[in-house]
């Protein structure tokens, strides 16, 4: 087959059917969203539901997000599961800062999203006061299905990101 001069791509007929055209952003996003490595920030009862989500009955790994990493340097999505007390708040922020970009954050449950029922001197009123949150999950605590739904929403969000032009955006923002 001879390609017309004005086409931007051509391929050998021998590999026809094995070549897929796509945008670089779409390819990168597809790879990112299907291998989310969560950093489990388990702080209260939500952590129990998060553990249940990872276990055999609900099985997070069906959606490619089962590689729970307890080192922030190996993780790319932080699941803040539970009540963030002021005593813990800066530790959570510090772990978030240690995660390499690209990174995302899920606020799991009422406490992480808004302080929940703890309208108190001791509890941070939502982790979004300290770190940017991508997905909020309602519930007290949310059921594993809800966490799965939240993770899948995050995957859908990642699909639409301009991942090439917005590399290291937090770092760039810090420097400027």
């Amino acid at each position, binding site marked *: 087959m001879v390609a017309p001069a004005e086409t931007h791509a051509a391929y050998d007929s021998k590999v026809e059917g094995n070549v897929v055209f796509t945008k670089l952003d779409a390819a990168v996003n597809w790879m990112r969203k299907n291998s989310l490595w969560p950093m489990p920030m388990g702080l209260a009862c939500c952590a129990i539901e998060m553990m249940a989500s990872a276990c055999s009955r609900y099985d997070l790994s069906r959606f490619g997000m089962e590689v729970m990493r307890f080192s922030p340097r190996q993780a790319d999505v932080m699941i803040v599961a539970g009540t963030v007390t*002021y005593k813990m708040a800066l530790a959570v922020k510090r772990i978030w800062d240690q995660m390499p970009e690209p990174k995302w954050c899920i606020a799991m449950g009422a406490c992480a999203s808004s302080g929940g029922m703890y*309208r*108190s*001197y*001791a509890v941070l009123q939502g982790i979004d006061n300290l770190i940017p949150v991508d997905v909020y999950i309602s519930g007290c605590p949310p059921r594993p299905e809800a966490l799965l739904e939240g993770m899948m929403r995050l995957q859908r969000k990642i699909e639409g990101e301009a991942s090439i032009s917005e590399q290291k955006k937090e770092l760039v923002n810090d420097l400027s």
Partner: protein
Amino acid sequence: MKAEQMVKALKEQFGDAILATTEFRGEHTVQVTLAGAKPLLKYCHDELNFDYLVDISSLDHMGEEPRFEMVYEAYGYGHLQHLRIKAKIPDGEDVPTVSDIWATADWHEREVYDMMGIKFAGHPDLRRILMWEGYPYFPLRKDFPLAGRPSEMPEVAFTGIAPLADGPFVTSAGAPDTVAREPRAKKQE
């Protein structure tokens, strides 16, 4: 020996230091002066075999004098009797530690200090236990607002004011049915 007889024995032993004794549904409470508290607690431990200190707590009677009150809950595994000892403390006065009598009192007293700001004389390690060192308030005092107060300690912690919207989220104890007892936001007077 039953708790009732122990209270009687304490009265004979300490006389004037005991201000009042009450009994409510089998629970015996001894109200003592602050000066009499430690010798009495030591006597309870050494002579009356109260080998287990269940809890130490404190009360804030704001507007009254003396303002604070210590509550000790003692229990004995030999005789299975329970005794509550209370002592009132004026604001700013130290309470003698009982951590040399019951080792468990160490952390209980640290919690009382952390939350209520009552100091313990002779305590081996009187630091905050729940809040961080340097937090400027004592949050369980009656004059501390429920929503908290802002504070800032760089690199350690900060606090803010919690939005209470329509008031604290509380149950109505004693309401006739479960629907009415459900926790709801209540306007603060």
